[in-house]
């Protein structure tokens, strides 16, 4: 039982850690699809929502 609960807790914590790590390398399309030929300021939030 102890190993089982430890496993559940570990899985939840590991998943949370992975999600925070992956969120730091998340790129918005406006940044990813920009070349040196374009200077994009604020791309705006229309259609894509606040996040």
């Amino acid at each position, binding site marked *: *039982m102890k*190993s089982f609960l430890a*496993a559940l807790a*570990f899985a939840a914590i*590991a*998943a949370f850690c992975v999600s925070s790590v992956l969120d730091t390398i998340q790129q918005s399309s406006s940044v*990813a*699809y920009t070349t040196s030929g374009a200077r994009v300021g604020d791309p705006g939030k229309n259609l894509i929502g606040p996040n």
Partner: protein
Amino acid sequence: MPSSLSHLRALCAAIALLFVFAHPAAAQLTFKPTAEAVQEDKLLNALKEGDKITGRISIPDTMASSLIQPAGRDWRDFQRSKLPIIGGVAILGMIVLLAIFLAVRGRIRVDHGFSGTKILRFASFERFTHWLTASCFVVLALSGLNISFGRVLIMPLFGAQAFATMSGWAKIAHDYLAFPFMLGLAIMFLIWIKDNIPGKLDWQWIKQGGGILANGKHPPAKRFNAGQKGIFWIVIIGGALMSVSGWFMLFPYLPANVTALQFWTVIHAVIAMLFIAAMLAHIYIGSVGMEGAFDAMGTGEVDLNWAKEHHALWVAEEQAKGRAPSKDGTHAVAAE
């Protein structure tokens, strides 16, 4: 300066001459745009299966260079008609098989009854690894099935909005629990590979049907019998395939190729259905199907009589090492 001016004048004259000579020549040519222009029909007919018509674009999103990929419709047909059949046959078929097995064979009992003496079968770290992988697997399987079949099976029960909210969370759980699952897989592989190399004994075990069909007949086995080794390799190979295909789906912009993504989603879905069916059998035999089996992963200690019946050679080995009680009486000393 004068020299450059004269150069310019000479250049203009040359261009003018070019027009004079070139124009009548061009007029004589009969330019046929039809003959030279790319035709959609020709491109479509020339496409290989799963290929796409691509061109040049002026935006940095390379995936946008795909103009038409008719394979998307095949993928739709796979999702809509083939996958429910594969999943239905595999999962429902396994449930029916297990129900029939339970009805016919009943619960597999410990023939000589419980001895009351325990022997340590799985140390706490092994149990931790097992439950880490298992708990992740259960969530991954349920959220995955929800993606494939929830729309038909669950959405009518709760309504579109509640189902979408639930599915959104299920998707997040699926994405991130995949990582502890992969970690569990890797540890399981490392700690149990040495006991899971197929050998001659396994062949005998298979020939005798594992002794699961007849009462009181137990082919000898070491720590893991052929059936358990089978489960081990199904988990390792199936899990590896799920992980590789899952990586492509987790980071869809890495392959940046929609037909590659279609291929990996199909692999992911088909292996998942077979994997879930196999795990149902594993869960059955480890709980309802066999008396005394759950203790191995529950407390880690199994009854000596159970161990002798199912893993006679392993018990002998443990006894030789002094890690198990010889008969009944003294309690096993936990392995360090």
